[in-house]
Each structure stands twice: as structure tokens, then as C-alpha cells.
């Protein structure tokens, strides 16, 4: 080969080698580029040294493992080293762990096989020096890994070991594959054990990771076969409600009217015919719709309003109305929100709607919201707004149930009339602070004449 040809060929080969190397790295599989052991906390090495400073939250610091600088895969470590590394990392996460630590835990656990995961869980449960350690983060990550790899098998393990957390993680993974299958599995759990599992699972649903899938008709069939799950007295009802709510919300995202039709059909099929069947159906619809509006509000769009508007008065509750009114205000402004409030036919709901509207307005401009109260006519809407002043204050200052903070919020109101109305509402609504109305009124920073006026309003014996 002549030198120029050799040169060109060599250069081309060099370029190709570079491209190939980089693509190969980008597309690398777990086995091709596993996590170096030096990145996890190994036995004998302080966790501190493997966790980088908080500011950069990097987990890339190189720490030799037990005197060796060679990188090893986490999944190829001995079970003892894996256990120790997870224990250290878990302890660190529980104390001052960073996002990097959480991610590192998820990454290394993600390399494990079912058998490795299962063995590690067993070894973590064994007492060490007579003490049983509770590495919550490691345990949760391992249980979720087990469930990810084989939810059915993980469920069997959870059931056989009577472990609520293990069973819950398996059920969550199962629900993500099929909500109906998860319901059937729940039904098979012994009742007492199911109570513990359901408690764990409610938190799992609230966390928002892992959504149940399927259709309402599939869920209906599963619940028809296992009606005890949806019994209001059942220990599973709250969890089942969340699961059904997730599936119904997904359906409502594309067609809220159809989803509500399906939900009503579900209710009619699940509630046995009888004297109070209509009321029971409404109660069931109300519970699921409450979950749906909450989820759909979060997703944006207006599907939540479609769901809300399709409900009868007895299918709504105060909290639902408050949140929907706040959402209306944010989307369409004051006028639309007031119209929404006025449309509510019960006596209580306009008040609840006002609570939501005022709260949302206060998030934008609290002084303006306080001034707005002065323009409201006496009535339920104004009472609701005044009630919201108290709630917003407790919320904003994280001082729930603190009478002194609520009094301070009342003194922020613009006019004396509003202050007295507010304190009258507050005197009725105080719960459990142990003082009588007269003591409460005495403690207010008001003039004697104002206190007398409040006492007149709060008098327990109403003379004709």
C-alpha cells in the first residue's frame, strides 16, 4: 500500500473507531457499564467519604474498596459487601442523605436480580450483634426492585412472610400492570393482614409514583366478585377508592363525560338493589369523583369541572367545592368563580366556594383580598371568605389550631365590622382550645364596647 493510501485508510479507521467507541458508550447496556463499586459505600469505608459535598451532590468520588482501586460491578460484589454497602447508604439517607444518595441507591438496586434482591432482604432482616437494624431506605428500594422484577412472585413472598410493606410494594407494581389483578390479590389477603397492607398502600398512592391501570369495567368485575373490598366499613375501602379513582381519572382525561357514565354504571352494578340503593350509589360516585377531581385539577385542562358539574348536590362535599372554586378562580378569574359559587344550590356550598375563592385570591394579593371582603354583602359568601382568612393564616404560618395566630389574622381585616364578624365566626369554630366564648372574647385586642357587642352576638340564651 502506498503511504498516502495508508494514511487515508488509517485516518478513516481512526475516525470510525472513535465514532464506534462513543456510540457504544451511549448505547451501553447494564452489563456493559455497570455501576463501579467504588461509587457505593463499601464495608470498611466511611459513608462520608463516598458521599460528595451537598453543594454538588455528586456521587462520583472515587473511593477504593477495601484497599483495591479496581472498579467492580455492584451486582457482582459478594452478598456481604452488598449488604454492608446498602446498610451504610441507607443509614446515610436516613440522616442527611442527598438526592444523589437516593439516586445511587435506586441505581445500584436496579442492577440486582430477583434472587440477589431476595437474599439481601433476608440478610438485612437478620440481627447483627443482637440488634435488628432498620435500614428503611434500603429495604424499600429492595422491595420495590423485587416487585419490579416479578410482582406476582414478590406478592407471594410478602404474603408468606406476612410483611405488609413487601406485600404493598408488590400490589402497587401489580396495580400498575392491572388494577383489576391487584384488587383480586387484595381480596385474597387475610382480613387483619390486609388492614396493615392497605395502610401502607394508601401512602403509596398519595406519593404519586405508580398509577393503577385498566378500565372501570375490569375493576367492576373484580369488585363484584369481592364486594367486601368496597364496603365502607372495610379496611380496604380507602385504598380501593384511590385505585379506582386513578383508573377513572385516566379515563376522564380523554373523555370526562364517558368516564362519569362508566362510573355511574359501576356504582349501579356494585350496589345491591334495595331501599337505599340510590343513596349508596351516590355515595360511591361521590367518593371516586372526589379522587378524580383532585387528580384532574392537577393535570390541568377542565375535565375536573366536567366531572364536578355532573355530580348531584349530595355527591359533593365541602372540601371538593372549596378546591374547585379555587381552581375556577385561578383559571377564569373572580367573576367566573363567584358565578360558580352562586350556582351551588345548598346553603353550605356557596360558603365553601367563597373559602376557596378568597384563599386563591389571597395567594395572589393578600391586601387586595382583605380589601375585597369590605365590598361583599352580608351573607354566606362573606362568611365563607372570613372563614378563609383564618384558614389561610394558619396555613401560611404553619400554625394550625393556634388561637393567637388566628386572632392576629383577624386584626388584619380592614374594618371593625369585618373584624367583629370574623371573631364571631371564629368563636363558633374554635375547636378544642378549651376556652369558653367569654374567655375567648376577653382575650381579644378589642375595645370594651366591641367585646360587649360580641358577647351580645354569642349569647347562649337567645331572648325573643
Amino acid at each position, binding site marked *: 500500500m502506498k*503511504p498516502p493510501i495508508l494514511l487515508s485508510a488509517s485516518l478513516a479507521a481512526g475516525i470510525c473507531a*472513535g465514532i464506534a467507541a462513543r456510540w457504544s458508550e451511549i448505547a451501553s447496556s*447494564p452489563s456493559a457499564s455497570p455501576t463501579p463499586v467504588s461509587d457505593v459505600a463499601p464495608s470498611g469505608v466511611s459513608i462520608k467519604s463516598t458521599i460528595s459535598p451537598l453543594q454538588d451532590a455528586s456521587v462520583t468520588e472515587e473511593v477504593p474498596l477495601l484497599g483495591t482501586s479496581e472498579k467492580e460491578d455492584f451486582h457482582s460484589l459478594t452478598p456481604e459487601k452488598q449488604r454492608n454497602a446498602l446498610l451504610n447508604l441507607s443509614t446515610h439517607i436516613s440522616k442527611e442523605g442527598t*438526592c444523589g444518595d437516593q439516586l445511587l441507591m*435506586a441505581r445500584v438496586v436496579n442492577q440486582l436480580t430477583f434472587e440477589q434482591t431476595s437474599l439481601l432482604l433476608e440478610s438485612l432482616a437478620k440481627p447483627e450483634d443482637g440488634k435488628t437494624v432498620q435500614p428503611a431506605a434500603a429495604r424499600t428500594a429492595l422491595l420495590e426492585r423485587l416487585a419490579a422484577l416479578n410482582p406476582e412472585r414478590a406478592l407471594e413472598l410478602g404474603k408468606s412472610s406476612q410483611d405488609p410493606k413487601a406485600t404493598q410494594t408488590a400490589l402497587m407494581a401489580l396495580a400498575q400492570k392491572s388494577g383489576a389483578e391487584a384488587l383480586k390479590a387484595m381480596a385474597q389477603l387475610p382480613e387483619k393482614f390486609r388492614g396493615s397492607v392497605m395502610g401502607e398502600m394508601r401512602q403509596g398512592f398519595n406519593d*404519586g409514583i405508580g398509577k393503577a391501570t385498566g378500565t372501570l369495567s375490569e375493576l367492576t368485575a373484580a369488585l363484584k366478585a369481592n364486594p367486601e373490598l368496597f364496603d365502607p366499613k372495610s379496611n380496604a375501602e380507602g385504598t380501593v377508592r384511590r385505585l379506582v379513582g386513578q383508573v377513572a381519572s385516566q379515563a376522564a382525561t380523554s373523555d370526562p363525560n364517558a368516564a362519569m357514565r362508566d362510573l355511574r354504571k359501576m356504582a349501579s352494578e356494585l350496589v345491591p338493589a334495595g331501599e337505599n340503593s340510590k343513596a349508596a350509589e351516590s355515595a360511591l360516585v361521590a367518593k371516586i369523583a372526589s379522587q378524580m377531581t383532585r387528580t384532574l385539577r392537577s393535570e390541568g385542562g377542565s375535565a375536573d369541572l366536567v366531572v364536578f358539574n355532573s355530580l348531584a348536590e349530595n355527591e359533593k362535599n365541602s372540601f371538593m367545592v372549596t378546591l374547585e372554586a379555587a381552581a375556577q378562580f385561578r383559571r377564569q378569574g373572580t367573576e367566573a368563580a363567584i358565578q360558580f359559587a352562586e350556582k351551588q344550590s345548598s346553603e353550605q356550598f356557596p360558603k365553601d366556594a367563597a373559602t376557596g375563592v378568597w384563599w386563591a385570591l389571597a395567594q395572589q394579593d393578600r391586601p387586595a383580598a382583605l380589601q375585597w371582603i369590605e365590598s361583599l354583602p352580608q351573607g354566606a359568601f362573606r362568611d365563607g371568605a372570613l372563614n378563609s382568612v383564618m384558614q389561610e393564616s394558619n396555613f401560611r404560618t404553619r400554625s394550625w389550631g393556634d388561637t393567637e395566630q388566628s386572632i392576629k389574622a383577624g386584626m388584619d381585616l380592614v374594618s371593625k365590622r369585618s373584624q367583629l364578624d370574623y371573631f364571631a365566626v371564629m368563636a363558633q369554630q374554635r375547636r378544642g382550645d378549651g376556652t369558653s366564648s367569654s374567655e375567648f372574647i376577653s382575650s381579644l385586642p378589642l375595645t370594651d364596647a366591641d367585646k360587649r357587642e360580641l358577647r351580645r352576638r354569642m349569647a347562649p340564651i337567645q331572648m325573643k
Partner: protein
Amino acid sequence: MSPRILAALCLVCAVSGFQLVDALTTRRTGPISSVRVVKEKPTATPTLTNSPLPSGNPSTPLPSENLPAQKQPQSLLELANACEKAGSPAQSRLALMEAISKLKPEELEGMLAVEAGNNDFFRSGRFDFQFAAKRLSEIAPEKAAALWLKTQAAHPSSDILLSSWAKKDPQAFASWSLGLPTDAQRALSGTMAQLVTEDPQRLMGIAAQLAGSPAGVSGARGAIAGMIAKASKGADPAEAIAYAQALPEGPMRTAALAELARWPSLDPGAHPEIAAALSELSPSQARRYLPQVTAVADKLPQGALRDSAYAAQMTGAAKKNPQAAAQKVESLSGTPDYPAAVRGFVEATATKDPAAAIEWALTIPQTGAQRSAALEKAAAAYFRSKPADALKWVKTAPLSSEEYLMLTGRTR
């Protein structure tokens, strides 16, 4: 050309090829370039050394199998929903953490700011928000703190925006807090309590700074709560008492000493410093310690807390055995504790027998808060159950003008 030069050229070209691919892959990506969703099979597990967490670093993109190439998530919610497609909850969580960890501070800040306006009241409690907020607190605490000020009123779980920073640099956190409006300082109570509950010594370094701040009071209470959580039944509280007494004099020290009333099996009556701190609290604050002091009411100094403790003691006793409780109340006649004891007795019996309860209330000799409260409770129950009898009673009852006004809203 010498073989050495040729080899060097090949190396240069190989590096160029490597960089070319890098450049191409970088150009393909959008603003949230490193956000990709991973599926379990095949799971792309980049080495930790190749995909470092700090934002802004070019990192190896993970295979995108579920997201349409043209549509990258523009909000945290979209990102979380996209990651849902990664597989099981564990895989979704991993994909989400990977994606969030690669966002630049300004991207994270923008996404979290959008969530602050989310119509879901519970939005900040979800894992994606919590992880993103914690991450922002780690990499850009000043942005996180500014965002907290904007979001905290609307979202109860947004305090996580501060927690990492507060733990990392308590001094800076304390200094920053003192520049906030009083209401915002109050809102730091949860963060402060969390900070010192884990490690009470954290408070010592900032106690002097926070002596006049509402957050300091929460911190003092939280520090003692942390010690109590670790104390076993019968443990000696001496160290905790010494800790509380080392705090700056004023509301912080009072709060810490009062919190010690919850120490396992501690008799607040046997510790005058704790009893004195309890008696300094306002009635509504003192009520949180009622379960601990009710049984030792007679050992407390005279004042609002002792009154509340006696009242609670008699309410409990009257619910169990009204006759025995009545005898106990009688036995206190003539003592300073009698009014509170009668009040407690009336609280328990007013609904069952309001006419008798109101007569009991009238036995409280002097006018004052206990008599007013007992009369009010009994009169309200009387009017609810027998309005005509209550109206008849109030017209002739031996009430002062003030009491008549309080019960009827009218002057006699």
C-alpha cells in the same frame, strides 16, 4: 511518514470521531436534554462516573423508548407522567430521579415555580415535587429559598425547599430567616423543628441568633422532642434539662423546659423549673401539656395551667363517676382550686343534666373566668335542651349584670 506520526494522527482522528458523535447527540437534545425515560429491558445503567449529578454537565442520554422524539416534558408533571411509562413504580422513580438530577438549577426552578400555581392543593406532597425541591435546595439554595417564599402559603409540603440547605448551613439559614417578615419566620417552625429534632446540637450554634424569633421557639421545642423520642421510660432527664437551661433566657428556654413535661414518666411537679416554665405559657399554649399535668394539678403553681389541670381532672372524673367527682369537688370548696374544679365538673355534666349543672356553676362564689365559663357552658346546654326552662331560669337567677349580658346579650 513515520509510524509514530501515523499512530498519533489515527489517535487524533479517533478522538475527533468520538467528539463528533458527542456533538451530534448534544445538538439533538432540547432544553431538558437529558430527560429520557428508561424501560426495564434493556435497562440502561450508565456508570455513575459517566453520568454525574451536577446539573449542566453533559451526560450520557439514556435510550428514549417511550417519549415521542419531538415532545420533551416542559413541566415537572409532564416529566413525572412520562417517567410513569418506564415500568414499575421502582423504575418510574429511578427514571424520574435520573431526569430531575440532570436538570439545570434554572430549569428546576422554572418547573417548580409552575407547580406552585398548580390547582392541586396536595401537589407538593408528591414524590416528584419533593425530590425536585430537595434537589434545588442542594444545588441552588438561594433559588430554593426564594421559591419557598412564593410557594409556602399555597403548598403545605414545600418546606422541603429549605431542608437540605438548612441542614448544610444552619448559620446561613438562621441569618436568612431573621430578615423575613414575622409570619414567614413563624412558617419556618416545621423546618426548624426537623433540623434540630435530628440533631439538637444544631440549635446551640444558632440559638443566640434566634432568641427573639418564633422559629427559635419551634426549634427549642423540636430539640427536646428529638431527645424525648430517643429516651426510654425512666431515663434521667438531667442532660435534657441542662440543655434547655443553656438556651437563651426567654421564650426559647421556656418552650424547651415546658416541652420536657413530655419526658417519659417525668413528674413535672418534682421539677420546679419545668412547672415554672409551664405556668409561663399562655392558656392555649399550656393546653398542649394538659395530658402530662392533669394528674399532678395539685403540684403546679397557682395560675392558668393549674386551673386547666384541675378542670380537666374533674371533667375526666365526672365522666367516669359523677357522684365521686361531685364529692371531690365538694372537698375543694373554699380553696382557690374550687372554681376550676366546678368548671370541669360542669363541662362533663352539662349535656346530661343542664339544670343541675347550672346550679353547680352558681356555687362558684366569686365572679371571674371559671364561673363565667361554667355558666356559659351550662346555659347553652340548658337552652338547647329546654329553651323555655332556660328563659325562665335566667330571669330570676342570681347573676351579675355582666353575667346576664353574657348569657342573654341584653341588659337586665
